[in-house]
């Protein structure tokens, strides 16, 4: 009996070693490729390898908002400061219960118009539309019946007048050159149907006229760890996947899309929580199905500053929403899995998201149970196990550090000595603390799924740091 258990535990142990090695190798690849892309981008910018125009393509910025009275005016003000000539701003108020719409009407002297909208994508009906032509660019407010974020974005697409649109969260701010940077790839790559921007955490940053004037790591340790996590897990992995057109996610906080192709693909799916990921996966499927040459790009120099959850409860809500969205998107497009038609997208990106994002909390839980069982049966080499996990944790921390400093260096951000020390210490803590916490949140994400699956999933907002 004990022999059988021993064999099973050994097999499970080998699986986990392989699982962790694969993940470490993916992380290593991400950080190495991501860092080298960032260094190359910096070299190219220093050597004026960039498309610099007076006029780029006209773009509609769609800001879906639900109960965003605290930040929405600041967001629109920051959008009016962009270094870009041809754009319009459309705020879609998705049936807010607060003063979101009124604050906008007052702040920008919006006037009611009777604008007929072209319903190219189904969405909840509008209640009223306000416009202003008195700002630098047209500002439009569409107030509609509540239907969720995806529904609000679809309304924004219907109201949009330009061939490209950007989706932007109402609590986010764009750097002054962000729109220019996210549009540039469309000029160098005519097949580009979508481009993700780099979402960075706004807490601790002070912006003046769309430029960073002060950058420091915030005092809140939870936010600091998210900053490190963003650099390692999101930025680096997206740069790696971008190398072979394999990105499955463009953050809903900031992304550019070619409107006609999004409309042809059916727009955002209002029935999913992860409408941002679902749209990108859908674009992959749609373009391959109809043999449309396409690329989905990632512009690391197009920077959007977004607020991170500052409390454990808000973080839990956010990650739960992300995990459910991931599940819904992957389930809906499960035909990609191990499908040769999708090539690397299927065998690399999709498998990575399946095993190391969607299923990872359960696999890790199974691993912990196995370790506990082996320990109880005295079948484990404790010192070896401690060594193994220590090396794994240090390895992760070193990669985080590399990604963080690569980003800091290539974006010319200046850090104080205390921030450098803080970052070094938190790299380790993030890897063993935040990661486990998030794993737990993901594991429990499906509790209450049916009841809450269509809610906006709000987190507490605070005023953005602008001068």
């Amino acid at each position, binding site marked *: 009996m004990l022999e059988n258990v021993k064999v099973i535990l050994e097999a499970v142990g*080998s699986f986990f*070693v*392989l699982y962790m*090695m694969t993940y*470490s190798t993916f992380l*290593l690849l991400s*950080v190495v490729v991501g860092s080298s892309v960032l260094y190359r981008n910096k*070299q*190219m910018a*220093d*050597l*004026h*390898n*960039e*498309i610099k*125009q*007076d*006029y780029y*393509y006209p773009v509609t910025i769609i800001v879906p908002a639900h109960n965003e009275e605290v930040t929405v005016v600041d967001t629109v003000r920051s959008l009016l400061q962009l270094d870009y000539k041809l754009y319009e701003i459309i705020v879609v108020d998705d049936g807010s219960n607060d003063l979101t719409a009124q604050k906008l009407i007052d702040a920008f002297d919006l*006037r009611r*118009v*009777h*604008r*007929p909208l*072209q319903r190219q994508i189904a969405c909840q009906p509008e209640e009223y539309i306000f*416009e*202003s*032509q*008195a700002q630098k660019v047209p500002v439009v407010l569409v107030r509609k019946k509540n239907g969720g974020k995806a529904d609000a974005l679809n309304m924004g697409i219907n109201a949009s007048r330009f061939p490209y649109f950007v989706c932007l969260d109402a609590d986010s701010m764009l750097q002054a050159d962000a729109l220019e940077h996210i549009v540039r790839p469309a*000029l*160098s790559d*005519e097949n580009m149907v979508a481009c993700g921007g780099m979402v960075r955490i706004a807490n601790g940053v002070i912006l003046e006229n769309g430029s960073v004037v002060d950058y420091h790591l915030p005092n809140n340790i939870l936010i600091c760890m998210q900053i490190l996590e963003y650099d390692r897990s999101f930025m680096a992995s997206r740069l790696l996947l971008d190398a072979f057109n394999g990105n499955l996610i463009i953050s809903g906080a900031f992304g550019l899309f070619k409107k006609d192709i999004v409309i042809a693909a059916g727009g955002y799916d209002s029935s999913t929580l992860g409408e941002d990921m679902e749209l990108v996966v859908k674009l992959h499927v749609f373009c391959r199905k109809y043999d449309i040459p396409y690329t989905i790009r990632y512009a690391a120099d197009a920077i959007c500053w977004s607020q991170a959850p500052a409390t454990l409860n808000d973080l839990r809500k956010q990650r739960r929403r992300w995990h459910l969205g991931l599940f819904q998107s992957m389930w809906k497009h499960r035909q990609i899995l191990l499908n040769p038609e999708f090539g690397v997208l299927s065998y690399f990106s999709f498998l990575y998201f399946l095993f190391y994002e969607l299923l990872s909390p359960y696999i890790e839980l199974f691993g912990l149970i196995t370790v506990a069982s082996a320990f109880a049966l005295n079948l484990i080499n404790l010192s*070896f196990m401690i*060594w*193994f996990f220590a*090396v*794994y944790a*240090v*390895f992760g921390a*070193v*990669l985080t*550090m*590399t990604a963080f*400093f690569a980003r800091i*260096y290539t974006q010319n951000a200046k850090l104080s000595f205390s921030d450098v020390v803080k970052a070094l210490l938190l790299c380790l803590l993030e890897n063993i603390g935040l990661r486990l916490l998030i794993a737990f949140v993901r594991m429990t994400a499906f509790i209450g799924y049916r009841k809450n699956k269509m809610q906006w999933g709000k987190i507490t907002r605070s005023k953005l740091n602008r001068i």
Partner: protein
Amino acid sequence: MRINLEVVIFAYIALCVCMLAFNILLILYRILSEYRFLHGFRRLRGAIQTQLDRLRAGDDIEEKQQIYLRKALLQLTNLRVFYSYLSEGLSLKDPVILAYIRKSKPVFEFLAGRYQRESEIKQAYFAYLIRKYELCSGEKSDLLTMVMIDFAASTSVYCRQNALQAIYSSGSAAAVVAAIRQMQKNKIVHNTKLIADGFLAFAGDHAELAGILWQGFSGFRLPVQLAVIQYIRAIQLDYRSEFFPLLINQRTDKEIKLAVMRYYGKIYYEPAQDVLLQTLTQFTNNEWEYRAVAASVLANYQSEPVIAALKKSLADENWYVRYNASASLVAMNIGYFDLVDVYNGRDRYAREMLEYKVESSRLISEAREAVSRAGKR
């Protein structure tokens, strides 16, 4: 196969050490290179300054310093220092700096041969400098122009764009067309908007450039042809009779025809009116893009049949046709009484669209008035 875990662990420890070393070295390299860029390169800066001082004193530049520059600027970092040192004076159009750059042209001609063998990133930077320094003469025998024409067919979009801009700054229409032909020969497709915007930045005679581009029009590929039409429309040259066959020929490419229609929206041409009207009224729903553009450009052809057709189009099945027709009617300043049948009619689509365009136009006028009042104050 059994995995030797100790080996794996040691391999990962080694990787950690390598990454840490990489981070530390990189930080040190950054500090060092920044320091060198700001405070180093004294000899190079000194050499440049000596020559600038000589020019200010009315002397000519020294040959031996130019020979030194040739060697020094082969290094990319030195080239960057050179550019950085002169950039402020260049942006202020300091005549001494401009004269020094002109006199340094032989140095750049020497460098051009070397940079042709470098990576595309470096070639793009070299092209950028040639453009900034306006060193291309555009003449057939000019070495830098030849090199830029060569770079214009690079596979790097940045190198192409910088090289093209260097050629546009030469003011030579022949050089521009030679660059376009070189791109086509190498089967390089450059973005239509970049080409059209580039033509607009041309430093020479636009009529000459347009003429030479039109001569070669049929030999160009679609993106260039579109760029040529967009360019001629933007500078509003009279190509009405030249473009007309493209408008009436049924075999003309759709994008070309739409571009030509837009041209006639900006430049009035009486014979085009009937064709545009026919397009609006007789094309099928599947050809809605033609009809939508026709509805928009007919704003430039105010006449009874046009107004009647636009009013009818307010109730068109296609949203864009309705939208553009209402915009055209508003742009024509058609009075309320001429549109009363639409306002009082049963067609809600037509009424709403027209009302919205009137509201929108009023908001724009109010905004303009507010700006002008603020300006007067």
